[in-house]
């Protein structure tokens, strides 16, 4: 459902070696900002506007990454890949239609399993203000909570200090994640299906410098799966000119 059957066919040979990276619509748009940095910096190419667009609030515009003069469109859900086809990156620009979240989750999980995607990375965030005091006083690195599915340890061997259970938002549970959108539901579903998944959940608040939160997330991701040389700066997309 992320791709049409034609686009799927062109990727099917690569899928068992692919890392799928996607954002959760969450606090401060951190996941989406992080994906913007990845697409802009890693020279990824647009391979499809996703059929999942019909499950989101409609949004179109000129390309967020290419300089004026290009006629490439941006839509609400897009799929990018690198030339070697080891990375598949989804950008989602608008939230789901309220009665379509379950349909999206169910079909995404089935698609990941069907395509035999090697591993999944979810970039997300949650409200810092509703966390345990220990998180309020933690370091910048510790502000990004790491969750690994049961099958994730082998696929992400360098991740440390991770948690294996993601708790959805409940006021009585101090470990719960509020403002993280579909993160918990997606994590639990993929965990049940033995999919290797890493979720990076940045604790932050709206209205703070959420770009800095996004940079922190992609820096941590880079430490885990080496996307670019450490000393190379992340490239801001042209769509950020107003930020």
């Amino acid at each position: 459902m992320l791709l049409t059957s034609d686009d799927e066919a062109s990727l099917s040979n690569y899928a068992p070696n692919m890392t799928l990276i996607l954002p959760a619509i969450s606090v401060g748009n951190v996941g989406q900002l992080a994906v913007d940095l990845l697409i802009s910096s890693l020279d990824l190419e647009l391979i499809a506007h996703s059929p999942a667009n019909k499950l989101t609030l409609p949004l179109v515009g000129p390309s967020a990454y290419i300089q004026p003069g290009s006629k490439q469109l941006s839509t609400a859900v897009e799929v990018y890949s690198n030339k070697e086809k080891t990375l598949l990156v989804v950008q989602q620009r608008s939230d789901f239609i309220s009665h379509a979240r379950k349909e999206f989750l169910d079909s995404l999980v089935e698609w990941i399993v069907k395509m035999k995607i090697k591993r999944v990375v979810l970039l997300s965030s949650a409200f810092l203000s509703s966390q345990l005091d220990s998180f309020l006083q933690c370091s910048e690195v510790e502000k990004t909570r790491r969750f690994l599915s049961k099958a994730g340890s082998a696929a992400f061997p360098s991740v440390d200090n991770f948690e294996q259970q993601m708790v959805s938002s409940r006021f009585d549970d101090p470990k719960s994640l509020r403002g993280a959108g579909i993160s918990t539901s997606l994590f639990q579903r993929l965990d049940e299906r033995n999919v290797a998944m890493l979720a990076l959940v940045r604790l932050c608040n709206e209205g703070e410098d959420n770009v800095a939160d996004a940079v922190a997330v992609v820096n941590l991701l880079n430490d885990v799966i080496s996307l670019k040389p450490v000393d190379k700066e992340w490239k801001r997309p042209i769509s950020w000119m107003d930020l």
Partner: protein
Amino acid sequence: MSGPTFFGEVLPLNSRAGDVDADFETEEPANFSVSVDPEMPKKLDSCKLLLLAHGEHACCYIKAAKMETNHVADIVVASTFESAGAYRLEIESSSSGYLLALCQREIPSEYAYEVIELLMTSFTASPPEKCLILCSKATVLHRGEAAKSNISILSSTNAGSDWSGVTSVPYLTTPNTIDGLPAAALTFCELHKMSAVVMTSWYQSTGHSDLVQAARSFDAARKLSTVGDYLLASSAVSENLAKLHPKNPQYFA
């Protein structure tokens, strides 16, 4: 969540994150239903151009500019709660093979894609050859550089040689976006590799003179390929726009 504004008031902040994330297993069904009225309208054998007018300015222009058409059906977005009014997309066709869709009152974005799917499949035997979508936005919403023109366009990847004249109209600049029904229409066309252009008129205010000016801006659509073949002459359109009732712009005085 709330926060201080520039002037010190504390107001609720917009957030894409809910205070308590939804339990998706018990998600509520949609509050509106989308249908065609009447259910099985007569289909055109082919459609050279689908012209979708979204919002007050675009509908004003089209009502002033269109040649003779026949009402075919309405696409109705109706609430399951009787107190809420229905939204209607009026569908008209002409003998010259174009289809017209008029959406005076903006349809909720949640149902936009469903409406567009019905629009593209219910009234013609095969998909329209080209789609032109007219919409408008307030100038204050233009982001980035100031708009150099009061008209801008955005096109699907397949809108190439069959839209001659498209380069004479300024392209929408990043980071501006379009949402709602026009965005759903362009997305549908992009996904189905159809040729489509969205033309946006940027208006200064909601006053009558700015409404007429914004409506008149759509006449730039004549620059695009054969669109002018389906419209009255510019002089006739201007005369019609001048007759717009100042208190009731849906009607001509």
